[in-house]
Structure formats: structure tokens, C-alpha cells
């Protein structure tokens, strides 16, 4: 198969994702869907469906290579590519339309998801409650902000979130809404837990068993909440759920630069100190009371339901490509 030229805009988007100019799970996912749409519109290769699909796959590969750990990215890409295959277009024009439509569908679904989560989650918050949050999660903040705008009187404790202090951004956002915010060191989460009514955090990735991969320290908080019988809610759009974990793949935990924790001077003066900086940890499902998705509130153990409903085709494609299963054998998957 001959190499097909990929439009300049796609490379630009890929670069922006790689350099973190485009950041945040939702924005990355939408940018990837947009890139596929542009690629389809600008397709100039041979007029057969086979070539077009190969071309889309090569664009998908470029996009997938930008950020190996973020799950929203492969979900956006596979959302489009799986549907393209399944709908069995008869000509290139139809194939182009499928890509454009599914990309738009994904973008829409992503844009409305955070709002819906905010609405659904806010119904769980009662006036007078004190909420603890960690890091800076758009979905978690959406829940808190919705509750506040409904006139509920709430207080928020925000962890500073070492090493990168995302808690400061959370505090600033909530203060701008007029919400009462108290910043605490990460080590003080058990100390304050007695004053907390609910924990609301976001998710980086939700695994098939309902385990939540999120900013390092989330599992400390969930455990301390569990001990104190404080409810833990995870706000996560369904594109944070990882289809790859259904086929047994592990979620890789990224370890970041030590210089996020200590400065250059410390490293020079202490060459024998090892500094380890994992970006995420895994909260087991038994410490999570519910995951708030735009499709509704689910117990974490029901993550599989969301995965099949939303990414059935993607999972089926994984099985076919990685385990050489035949498509006919796998047709029990829902087609959404």
C-alpha cells in the first residue's frame, strides 16, 4: 500500500497535543476527533474504500502516538475508526461522511458530557455540606459549581496537590464562583476528613473493574474517606473509561521528572537521593461509592456496562486485532 499524504492541520494538532499546548482529557479527545474529520475532508487518494480506510488508520496512528497514557485520546480515535469499519461504506464519499459525522458526534458528546455530569452530580450534594476535592478536575468542579448555582450552601476543601499545585487552579476557579474554599496540604487529608461530608474527584482513566486511575494522592483520600464513612464520588465522562482494560491490558502509570518535586540545586547537592514522581495512583472500586457519568450514576463495578454500551465496537475490534477472533463470533456486542 502506498503512503498517503496527511494534511498539515493534522500534524499541527498532533504537535499541539504532544507539546501539551492542548491539555485536559476532553480537549485532547475533541482535538483528535477534529483532526480525523479534517483528514477525511481533505482526502485526495485513490477512490476506493480500502485505501481510504488505510489512510484514516495512518492518521489515527499519528494521533495515538502523541500521548501514550491518556485514555480519552484512543477512545476518540477508535470511536471514529471502529464505526467507519462497521458501517461498511460502499464508496469513498459515504466513508468520508461517516468519519465526519462520527467525529462531530464525538465532539458533541464530549462537550455536553461535563455539563450533564455537573447536573447529575449536583443532585447528590445537599445544602450545608462540606466537600473535599483533589487536583483540578473539570468534571468534579462542574458538579460543585452546579450545586452552588442551585443555591446550595457548600464549603470546599481543596488539596494543594503536589508536585504541581493544581489545587491552586481549583481554588481560583471555585473562588471566582463565590464558593468558600480552604486549601490544605495533601498530608492533612485524614486530619480534615472528620469535617467532610463528601469527596468528589475526577478520573484520568476508569478501568474495566471500576478501579479509578487519577492524580497521585486520590487513593490516599479514598481510603481515608472509607475509614471515616465519607462517601466518595468520581466524576468521569464515559470517554475516560478504558476499553483496552476489558481485554486485560494494564493502565500504565507515568513517572514524571523529579524536578517537579525538588529543584536542580537539590539534585546536584544530593546525587544519591532517588526522587520518584508517579503522576497517578489507582483507587480500588471498593473505596468508590459511585462514578458520575453523563449517562448517569453507576457503581464503579458496573464500569463494564458503560464500556460495552459506549465502546462495544472498539472492544470487539481489540479482540479481532489482538486475538485473531472472527467478527461473526463477536457480534453480541452492542452497536451504539
Amino acid at each position: 500500500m502506498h503512503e498517503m499524504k496527511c494534511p498539515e492541520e493534522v500534524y499541527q494538532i498532533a504537535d499541539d497535543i504532544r507539546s501539551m499546548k492542548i491539555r485536559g482529557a476532553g480537549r485532547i479527545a475533541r482535538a483528535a476527533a477534529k483532526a480525523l474529520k479534517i483528514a477525511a475532508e481533505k482526502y485526495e487518494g485513490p477512490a476506493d474504500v480500502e485505501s481510504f480506510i488505510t489512510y484514516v488508520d495512518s492518521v489515527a496512528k499519528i494521533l495515538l502516538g502523541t500521548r501514550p497514557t491518556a485514555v480519552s485520546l484512543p477512545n476518540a480515535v477508535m470511536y471514529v475508526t471502529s464505526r467507519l469499519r462497521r458501517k461498511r461504506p460502499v464508496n469513498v464519499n459515504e466513508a468520508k461522511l461517516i468519519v465526519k459525522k462520527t467525529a462531530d458526534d464525538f465532539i458533541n458528546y464530549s462537550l455536553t458530557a461535563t455539563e450533564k455530569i455537573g447536573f447529575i452530580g449536583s443532585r447528590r450534594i445537599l445544602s450545608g455540606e462540606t466537600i473535599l476535592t483533589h487536583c483540578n478536575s473539570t468534571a468534579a468542579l462542574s458538579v460543585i459549581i452546579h450545586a452552588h448555582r442551585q443555591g446550595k450552601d457548600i464549603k470546599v476543601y481543596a488539596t494543594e496537590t503536589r508536585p504541581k499545585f493544581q489545587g491552586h487552579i481549583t481554588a481560583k476557579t471555585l473562588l471566582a464562583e463565590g464558593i468558600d474554599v480552604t486549601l490544605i496540604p495533601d498530608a492533612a487529608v485524614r486530619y480534615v476528613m472528620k469535617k467532610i461530608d463528601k469527596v468528589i474527584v475526577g478520573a484520568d482513566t476508569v478501568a474495566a473493574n471500576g478501579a479509578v486511575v487519577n492524580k497521585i494522592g486520590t487513593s490516599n483520600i479514598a481510603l481515608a474517606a472509607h475509614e471515616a464513612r465519607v462517601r466518595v464520588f468520581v466524576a468521569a465522562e464515559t470517554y475516560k473509561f478504558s476499553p483496552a482494560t476489558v481485554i486485560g491490558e494494564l493502565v500504565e502509570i507515568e513517572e514524571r521528572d523529579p524536578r517537579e518535586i525538588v529543584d536542580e540545586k537539590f539534585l546536584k547537592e544530593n546525587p544519591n537521593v532517588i526522587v520518584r514522581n508517579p503522576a497517578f495512583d489507582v483507587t480500588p472500586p471498593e473505596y468508590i461509592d459511585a462514578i458520575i457519568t453523563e449517562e448517569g450514576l453507576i457503581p464503579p463495578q458496573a464500569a463494564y456496562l458503560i464500556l460495552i454500551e459506549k465502546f462495544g465496537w472498539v472492544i470487539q475490534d481489540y479482540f479481532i486485532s489482538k486475538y485473531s477472533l472472527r467478527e461473526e463470533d463477536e457480534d453480541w456486542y452492542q452497536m451504539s
Partner: protein
Amino acid sequence: MEAKTLVSKLVSNIISWKIRSSTELVEETLNTLECIIKKSKDLNSLVLDIIYMVNEVIKVRPTAAMLINCSRDILLELNNVVNSKPKLPKAKEALLNKIRRIKGRMTNSIERIATIGANRIIPGDIIMTSAYSKTVMKIFEKALEQGKKFEVFVTESRPGDDGKIVASELSKLGLKVTLIVDSAMRYFMKYTTRVLLGAEAVAANGAVISKVGSSLMALIAHEARVRVFVAASTLKFNYETVFGELVRIPQAPEETILPGEVKEKIGGIKTEIPVLDVIPPEYVDAIITEYGVIAPQAIPLLMRDLLRTWPPKAADVSEIISNILEVTKSA
């Protein structure tokens, strides 16, 4: 005047977290006290200066049981001195002697705890610790002297970032040490074989008051079935808690986590920065004291043996002070 300057310097070092370990806090207090006693020119100002100092230091760290216990000893001695109406040099000598004896007891207890604690370290151990504890550092040192090979995870321990200093010092001893953020405690707990912590105070029910984050670490260790050891001299026993006194947790100044320029950008934010928290006894497997390793629930037994009476008769610091003041006034 002189004494006030010395005291305010000490107090500001405590508040700004320059003095990190509660043992060092007492050592510095005793050193300052020696200075004040030596410089004193008459008995009356000597008495007032000592009382002033004790009050000021306890005010900033009311949780430091060792500080309270040592202050009590010194005040009791001062009470004796005042009652026997000696000449100034004689009074000075008595008080300096007392301080010397307390210092000796502290040194001895740390030595013994280090030996006992080092015995509990097994070659191949991976030990997690947090904050700066002079006693814990001594245990590591001793275990290294015994030729044991082990490694240490140390948390950053905010506020104060003590972990950076601990990591630096331990690495210079030749120990393999890994620095992590406080949030990474649970992530690394499964690679850990033991948790070793210092203490600010030990309450009558075996609860341990230690640097904030310690109780989180103990909970996480408990979940992972990792044993938690606390190194604490019996000088850190808080006898007041026998009578139901609650331990009040002091707060660190806001700048420790929120420098002025950052705060300005965020706007009207509040902070809550506890310096310490309380580990419930059920998460502590053993307390390593200079009298041996004991279960936290057995603390009342050791208290009884130390004071040879139960309930403990540890005089209240403020009561001794008012006694002393009465005697000096009537004189």
C-alpha cells in the same frame, strides 16, 4: 531584656519550622534556658525569666509532651530553690545541674531507643518514614553501624518539607533513600516492609501525636498489613491525657504552603495547615521506648511504673508556676 530577645528568637525558630524535631525543640529550649540562667544577675529576675520562657515556648507548641515534662522538672527544681532562699550562685548551680541531668536523660534515652529500634530493622527492609525525627535518624544510623542493608522511602512531609532534609542526611550516611510526595504514600506502600515514625507526644490511650500525615501513613500501612513502629522516649508521654485533656493541634503559618505572591494570584483563599495529627493506637503495632518495645495500649502500665503511682501524679505546669510566684511575692 536579654532573656526576652533570646526567647523570641527561639519562639520564631519554632513557628517558622526551623526547629523540626520535638527533641531538638527541647534541646534548644534547654540551651536557651542555660544561657538565661548563666547571665542572670539577681534571683528575682532569674525566676521571672524562667517562668516567662517556659510559658512562651509551651504556648507555641502545647502538644510537645517532652517540652512540658522537662519544663515541669525544671519548675519543680525552681520551686525548691525559691523555697530554700539560697544565694544566686547556689540557685544557678542547682538549676544548671537539673538541666544537665535532663539532657543526660534525653541523650541516654535516644541511645537506648536507637539500639532497640535498630534491632527491629531486618536486612532487606524497605522502611517508609515521614518528617524529621531525631530519634528515627539515630535508629537508621545505628542499624547502618550494625552493617544492616535496608532502604528508606521518605515523604516530602509538607508543611515544612522536612522530607528533603531527611533524604539528604540519610543519603549522606550511605543509605539508599527515595524521596516521594506525601500523596504517593499509598502508591509505594506495597513496596514497603515497615513504617517507622517519630512522635511529638504519646497519649494515655496509646494514641500517638506526630507530624501531620503520620496518621494517614499509619492508616495506609494498616490497610496494606505493613507494621507501624513509633519511636518515642517516655519523656514524650502526655500525662495530662489520663485525665481527659484533649490535645490541641497547632497550625502552621499560611506561608508554609502558600507564599504571598501565590496567594495574591488566587485571591481570597483560606488555609488550614495542621502541624500534627493523631494516630489512633489500633494503627500502631509498637512503640519503641528506652524501656523497650511495648504495645500502645500498654502505655498506662509504663506510665505507672515510671511514676510509681497510678493515676499519675504529674503536677500541672501552671500550678507550679503560681506556687513559685506566690513564694517570691511574699519574700
